[in-house]
């Protein structure tokens, strides 16, 4: 039960990144899976570099696709995903790597420390975003205007391009960091991230049906899906 709870937290936060990219940056970011895998491979060296690399890829994605429409930007993200995957294959040669992990006990439950840390970071991310969503500061209103129509947002005096860059950088950095933590203790290969990306995309798609309530309902949706699976 406790591992279900932690998984749901992690997937909800990943789905939040997917949803934000889709609604604000107008791209179904298919490179998230490879960024997640990249995090796993980078964690071999240090966990601290994962968000930096993730952020760089997010920025690259933004710069490369900022003049594209949604379909082309998504194709571009798929190209980036495969490029990262291939780069990992070339750099690491050995297809499968077992990542180290630390075990600890939490109220009698045996847990992987890195997974616990990933879920705590995810919980913090979700709580912060939920507060942002419910309190509706002016920046949240700006984000809502961008979500509806970029052209209108520009007429409202909002820098939609900057918001897009921020969303892509933060979400990519987050995916990369969580990848570094959550893949600990597992045998990883360059294609492992696809599963996590598809699962997050699935949760985000279901939550997206609830339109304005999507962000609030991400966590219950994630619980439901994780429980069913």
């Amino acid at each position, binding site marked *: 039960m406790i591992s279900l709870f932690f998984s749901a937290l992690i997937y909800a936060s990943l789905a939040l990144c997917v949803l934000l990219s889709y609604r604000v940056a107008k791209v179904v970011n298919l490179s998230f899976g490879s960024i997640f895998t990249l995090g796993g491979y980078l964690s071999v060296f240090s966990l601290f570099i994962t968000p930096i690399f993730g952020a760089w890829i997010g920025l690259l994605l933004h710069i490369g696709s900022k003049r594209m429409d949604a379909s082309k930007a998504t194709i571009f993200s798929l190209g980036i995903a495969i490029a990262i995957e291939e780069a990992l294959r070339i750099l690491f040669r050995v297809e499968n790597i077992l990542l180290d992990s630390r075990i600890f006990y939490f109220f009698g439950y045996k847990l992987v420390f890195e997974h616990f840390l990933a879920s705590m970071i995810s919980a913090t991310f979700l709580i912060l975003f939920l507060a942002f969503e419910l309190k509706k500061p002016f920046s949240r209103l700006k984000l809502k205007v961008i979500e509806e129509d970029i052209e209108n947002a520009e007429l409202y005096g909002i820098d939609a391009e900057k918001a897009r860059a921020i969303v892509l950088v933060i979400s990519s950095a987050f995916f990369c960091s969580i990848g570094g933590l959550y893949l600990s203790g597992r045998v990883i290969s360059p294609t492992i991230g696809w599963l996590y990306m598809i699962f997050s*995309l699935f949760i985000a798609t279901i939550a997206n049906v609830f339109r304005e309530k999507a962000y609030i309902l991400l966590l219950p949706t994630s619980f439901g899906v994780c429980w069913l699976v």
Partner: protein
Amino acid sequence: MLVSIAIRILVLVLLILPVFLDCYTKLLAASALTLAIFTVSWLYLEKDLGWASLGHSIPFGVSAYLFAINPLLLFFSPLTTFLLFPLSIFGKHTFPFASFVFSVFLWYLAHHIVFEGKGGEEGFRAPSINLDLIYLISVTILILSCLLIWKISNSYFGLKVKAVRDDEIAAKAIGINSLPFKVFGFAISCSLASIAGILHAAIFGHVSPGVFSPYFSLFPFVAATIGQGKIWSSILGSYTVVFLSWFLSPYVPEFHYAIYAVALILASYTQSYARSDRSV
């Protein structure tokens, strides 16, 4: 014009030459050939119907699995249309990604397909057919597929299909019921992809979950991008990807993915993607 003729001649040479070469080259050529049929099936869906699928491995892989489990099941392969067609409810702009995500989902699901104690990650053994025979069958099917598509595309029926592609509402206004044309177009494309899948299984005598991997899902898109959407050039594109990948893989692991990445990034900058968008 001269380039076009040269490409056709080159394709014909590529089709005939392996007959006189060793088994290894013939196997490689047969693999490229099945993937060329696969690309032709994808091109028909994209060019004549306006639906760019990034999950064409669905009919390809499902049919290969059906054939491997029981060769008699190959007659059900046209039904794979009903796996791909429902995704069209997402609309033309989302369909490529919906189909891609579904194919990745099947890729993972295929790891859990077990029948009579076989399958799983190992996959299934498929009935193996003599390489010379299967090569000749593949060449015949490729030529017949091209002829079929050319014939349909230029028929009165094909015109109606294109009218539906260009503007469904306008097509309805002139009395064309779009649904049967869409289903029929999907059925032709999926049936050809299924044949390619079956041939692929028969050539290698084995089917694994890899038939649903992004390698197969994206293959026709990449080949068509290299061939700039023209049928003969795209066949040549298929051969290029297969041969380059085969020869360079010892130096760069899974080299085809490097080609894929470049093709996808370039396609997003040019008009190679969503060619059928021109009149939608």
